[in-house]
């Protein structure tokens, strides 16, 4: 099995945690920074903590947006985590309207303000997983994962939604799987054994 994994470092977020977690499930992770490195990757994780606009600016400046699109059209797997998952979508309303990578149809929106719910959501929330999803294989239908975010994805392609969660009185998309384009709103690298299981599924993905 090819254990190569590229983790894109675009100066946003904690690369350390995801690198350690990837090693634990069998990957040989490499932190990459350039468009060429993205294109020559076998498997890719797009992490991210921080703002949508800053992230897209950085990806556009360094030619990474284009290389990510080319990488995905070659059919190789990508896993976006948290902000990294949101970047896969068309646009975000975080501090104005900003265009995303547009690999999946949908928009990133702010959680509505509802009494008793704090924003950002910082908690282990339940994930209602589709047992058919490759990314969520072996995850029981209701499992807790660690979330940390203020914006959620309004996904326009329901077929690819493989898990949902509830916050602010609404149900939202917490993981997607569109062919080779995968994403989790939660942090698998911070969700204990179950999170490692999701990363292990990504390790086995496509084999």
């Amino acid at each position, binding site marked *: 099995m090819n254990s190569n994994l590229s983790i894109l470092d675009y100066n946003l977020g*904690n690369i*350390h*945690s995801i690198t*350690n*977690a990837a090693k*634990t499930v069998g990957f040989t992770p490499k932190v990459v920074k350039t468009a060429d490195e993205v294109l020559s990757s076998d498997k890719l994780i797009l992490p991210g*903590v*921080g*703002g949508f606009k800053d992230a897209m600016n950085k990806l556009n400046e360094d030619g990474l947006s284009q290389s990510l699109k080319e990488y995905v059209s070659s059919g190789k797997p990508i896993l976006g985590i948290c902000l990294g998952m949101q970047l896969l979508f068309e646009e975000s309303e975080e501090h104005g309207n900003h265009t995303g990578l547009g690999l999946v149809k949908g928009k990133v929106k702010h959680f509505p303000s509802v009494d*008793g*719910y*704090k*924003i*950002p959501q*910082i*908690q*282990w*929330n*339940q994930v209602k997983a589709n047992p058919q999803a490759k990314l969520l294989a072996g995850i029981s239908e209701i499992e*807790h994962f*660690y979330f*940390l*975010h203020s914006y959620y994805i309004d996904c326009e392609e329901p077929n690819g939604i493989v898990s949902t*969660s*509830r*916050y602010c009185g609404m149900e939202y998309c917490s993981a997607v799987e569109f062919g080779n384009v995968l994403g989790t709103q939660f*942090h698998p*690298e*911070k*969700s*204990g*054994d179950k*999170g*490692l299981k999701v990363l292990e599924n990504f390790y086995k993905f496509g084999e």
Partner: protein
Amino acid sequence: MKTKRIIARLDVKNETLVKGVHLEGLRVLGFPSAFAEHYYSEGVDELLYMDVVASLYGRNGLIDLVKRTAKNIFIPLTVGGGIRNEADVTALLNSGADKVCINTAAVKDPSLIKRLSDKFGASTIVVAIECIKDTDQSYKVYIDNAREYTGLEAISWAKQVAELGAGEIVVTCVDPEGTGKGLDNELVDKIASAVSIPVIAHGGVGKPEHVADLFEQTCADACAIASMFHYDAIHKVEFDGEGVHGNTNFLNSKATKKNLTPCSIPELKQHLHRKNIIVR
């Protein structure tokens, strides 16, 4: 769906796990990484490392510990103690911390909160507030592990902290801290209702009922617990006293502690489940 978080707090001095009373009078309990691994295996939701002497001596000795912890523990890790500037935060995040916790430096220069929040994201910045009830019944803010009085009023400082862009607040109830007498729920609720960001309550948990009371009587989002877990773990974590500096008399005696019902993480979570409080 709102799940309450149970956080194990580990006070660290010279790379040793310690625990005091009112944040003072520290006893050596063992190696923090061994306790952290034990809590992770028991299903704790987060870890909080506090270098309890760092702000006093103006240094930061947690980096190696954080690196070791991040290698095999896959839950959120917050690190605090002695953080003064952007460079300190960068160093901790690059070592594997997910969030950093600031107190003294934030009081001395509140604009630091905004600068750190802008640079690293609000969700990375936790502000600790050490509170003591004044003779006029108002709560006042202390720094340097409650050694120094600031004159700041706690609720308005909490609001300011939230406005400046902090992602979370840790409220330490200094009066009951380390005594096992229970949290100051009045204080926690005042702060948790005054801000729209998550609030972690800390200081005084001595038995599982105290945690249930906290979540039933306040809108706190999480509870950070030290003694109650440590005095349970102390019998389960291997420790031979080698290479440890500090007061180990207590440790060697394997004594128990007054006002404290040692409790494991699964035992606490079962107790909360029975009370219909949602935890992982």
